């Protein structure tokens, strides 16, 4: 076994060098996770500003131009800074452990793909302090609002997006290379844990669509600085082209966010049901089907843009189809629990909440796919509610479940179960108070990205804000719980940690040693 990692006892210099120059998948996973949590808090702070302003009608705390910067930055930071890196962090930690590999296939690139991220977000966040303010055109940055009419800081935004894209692409290539080349003997594809499967498929999605996003922002850059007219109608371009290019990236992107979450839940539910995952192979096929469909449904984000009816019908039918493989997954999870021996530890609670709330978000998604009804839903709070059910109760809940589930394996200490369950209930209740009323607001006619609203929307906005503050508080509890676990948690010695846990990651010592599987395990 090689030498261990530098600790604080070796001095600051050695300790900092360890983290900056590390090529160890566990260290890099840890870096990703802490970074994404920091971004989660930052994006959450933006959300708190938004909800505080929307607490009452009228402009009380901030001006509309700053409000628009907040909605934009909240979206960008949460999608690119919090959720995506969190799952890359989990992938780094868990994929080598799950497939019996000593490390990722491309460890130096792994280091690079993490360390460019803080710079990307430093650049992005610094735009808020520039003259003219930061990006204020929504996280979807539709041209020409984001080109001709954008603040000057848009060039920094474009550069930041380019860096994030490069980081994601490198991370994905690494995951694909690792899974294809470094599986332990006997670990065939159809024996891989579902988390690995969902991540491989996600990685292919990322490699396919991140360059499209890079293309979109590069065309913006040309339009803004070099006199081209890709998106400028006055110069012969087409603003709608931007939306097609953006959503060709953007729709797969939402599956990039949710597929690893599916993977996490597919690990946790069998553990606490003490029963193997039901329908493993159909889970794999359903994941692949969802990934494929995600490429051919993008224009359902654009039903009001004036497409010909044939286009609308095609995108409506294709979108409705996604309900089939998604339904298969939900049925599989529930059937996994059926005739199991269930216990409800914190990771299980978050996973069950995931299944319920994600399915609810799926129902509203199905409603949104119906083009004629979407004419009423589009760009209202109904959409905001829908995607927060999928992104927050989906991706964030499953990420939280993953932290509670694997934290004992990572640091060799058990979190406080009572505190975990309290945190779950605060998060669950706060989330629903925040986002359920937004369905009503949207149906009653409140558009999204509104800095101010008429008096008829006052009541539900106030309720929603209260819920958002509660949900925000739950994240502080999570942070507190994690830090308390690392500092004074009860030590765990059992390799399995959880009674029903299955898989290679539970065969290594607890806490997981710095280097694992120097000799590949045999998988039967």
């Amino acid at each position, binding site marked *: 076994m090689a030498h261990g990692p530098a600790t604080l006892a070796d001095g600051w210099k050695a300790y900092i060098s360890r983290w900056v120059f590390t090529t160890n998948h566990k260290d890099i996973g840890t870096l990703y996770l802490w970074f994404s949590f920091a971004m989660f808090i930052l994006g959450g702070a933006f959300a708190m500003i938004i909800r505080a302003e929307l607490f009452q009608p009228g402009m009380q705390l901030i001006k509309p131009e700053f409000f628009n910067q907040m909605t934009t930055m909240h979206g960008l930071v949460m999608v690119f800074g919090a959720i995506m890196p969190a799952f890359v962090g989990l992938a780094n930690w868990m994929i080598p452990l799950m497939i019996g590999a000593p490390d990722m296939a491309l460890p130096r690139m792994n280091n690079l793909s993490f360390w460019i991220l803080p710079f990307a977000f430093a650049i992005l966040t610094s735009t808020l302090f520039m003259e003219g303010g930061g990006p204020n055109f929504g996280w979807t940055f539709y041209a020409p609002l984001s080109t001709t009419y954008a603040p000057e800081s848009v060039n920094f935004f474009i550069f930041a997006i380019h860096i994030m894209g490069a980081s994601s692409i490198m991370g994905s290539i690494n995951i694909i290379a690792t899974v294809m080349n470094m599986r332990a003997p006997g670990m065939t594809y159809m024996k891989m844990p579902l988390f690995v499967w969902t991540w491989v498929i996600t990685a292919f999605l990322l490699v396919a669509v991140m360059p499209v996003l890079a293309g979109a922002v590069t065309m913006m850059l040309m339009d803004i600085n070099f006199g081209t007219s890709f998106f400028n109608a006055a110069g012969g371009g087409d603003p709608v082209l931007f939306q097609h290019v953006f959503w060709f990236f953007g729709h797969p992107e939402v599956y990039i966010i949710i597929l690893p979450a599916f993977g996490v839940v597919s690990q946790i539910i069998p553990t606490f049901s003490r029963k193997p995952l039901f329908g493993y192979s159909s889970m794999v096929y359903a994941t692949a089907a969802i990934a494929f469909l995600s490429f051919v449904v993008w224009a359902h984000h654009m039903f009001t843009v004036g497409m010909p009816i044939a286009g*609308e019908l095609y995108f409506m039918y294709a979108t409705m189809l996604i309900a089939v493989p998604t339904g298969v997954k939900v049925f599989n999870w529930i059937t996994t629990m059926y005739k199991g021996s269930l216990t409800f530890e914190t990771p299980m609670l978050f996973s069950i909440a995931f299944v319920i709330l994600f399915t609810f978000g799926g129902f509203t998604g199905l409603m949104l796919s119906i083009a004629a009804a979407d004419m009423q839903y589009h760009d209202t709070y109904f959409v905001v509610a829908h995607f927060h059910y999928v992104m927050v109760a989906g991706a964030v809940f499953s990420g939280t479940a993953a932290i509670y589930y694997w934290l004992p394996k990572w640091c060799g200490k058990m979190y406080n179960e009572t505190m975990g369950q309290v945190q779950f209930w605060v998060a669950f209740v706060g989330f629903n108070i925040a986002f359920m009323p937004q369905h009503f607001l949207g149906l009653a006619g409140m558009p999204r990205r509104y800095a101010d609203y008429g008096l008829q929307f006052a009541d539900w906005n106030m309720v929603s804000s209260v819920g958002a503050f509660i949900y925000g508080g739950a994240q502080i509890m999570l942070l507190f719980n994690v830090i308390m676990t690392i500092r004074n948690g009860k030590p765990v010695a059992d390799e399995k940690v959880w009674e029903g846990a299955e898989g290679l990651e539970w065969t290594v010592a607890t806490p997981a040693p710095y280097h694992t599987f120097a000799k590949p395990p045999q998988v039967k």
Partner: protein
Amino acid sequence: MLKRAQALFLSLLSLVVSLPALGSAVVETSTRQLNMPQGVTEVSQAAYDIHMVMVWVCTVIGVGVFGFMFYVMYAHRKSRGAVAENFHENLVVELLWTIVPTIILIVMAFPATTALLKVYDTDNPDIEIKVTGYQWKWQYEYLGEGVKFMSELNTSLDEVYGREPKGEHYLREVTEPLVLPVGKKVRFLVTGNDVIHSWWVPDFGVKRDAVPGLFTSGWAKTDEPGIYVGECTELCGLGHAFMPVVVEVKEEAEYNEWLAGKKAEAAEYASTIGKQWSAEELMVRGEEVYERSCAACHQSNGEGIPGVFPALKDSPIALGPMVGHIAVLIDGVAGTSMQSFADQLSEVDIAAVVHYERNAWDNNVGDVTQPLDVLNYKQSK
């Protein structure tokens, strides 16, 4: 506060009890509206109907799936002594829950298609109206009638910033609503002037993006006179929340009277354009126009927002020659968000606002801009 909470709870309860009945309270601006409005046109009715079909389909499936799930969570818990079985596959069940949802979806595709066909049925209109989105107001042009006007928010900034109590119609009032007759099929041709906006009237079921360089179309035909309020639904900059849509549907006779009045107004305006205006008249009118059309960016105090919108106070353009100042308003400034106001403001309004900008906030240029100066500049191009 407590009363409000009670009312909220009751309205939630009523949602559970009588979902379909809720939509019938048309045009009500109730703070407790929970569901999509049924509206007053065929299209809005079609959207509402398919929406309700989906709500019920999802509710039934949801109750079934979650009901089963809660049963499992109750019955098969370890604390009740449940012992895990080991099955993990069942081809029949798996095929069944793939095929059955597919069939449900295929069945639902029929009403969904019919509803969409209705949305797209824009042929053979009786009246055509061009709707243009500007930052941050709407322009309505009655094609073939020679009637065209801007419709802007009529709520004061004092109400927005809490310096005055908010009125009953806060953010739901405009300077001049779109006026339509009952019983006529109206086609809306929607486009944008600067960025993308989206023109939405929920009670008509019409939401069409206003994209620069493109026309999108929607239609409405209603038999119910009334005032219908909508919104801009595509992020269009800092005034996004402040450009409501207000439509007034009148009986046909009243509509014709209104239209004749608008035509007469246009004719009368043409005759007053040559009039000499006094500096005082121009200042008063100019301030009104400025507050409505300019202050959102350049601010009421003329100091702009540093780095985004330039100050007009002490600006070289406002202090420079009058023609250059007029040119900025008529032509806009390419590559910036300063748009052309040539089609948005009348010659009188442009003259008034130029005069105001040159003489307010200690700019004190002292010259007087007349509508004829504006007209001359327009014609010289």
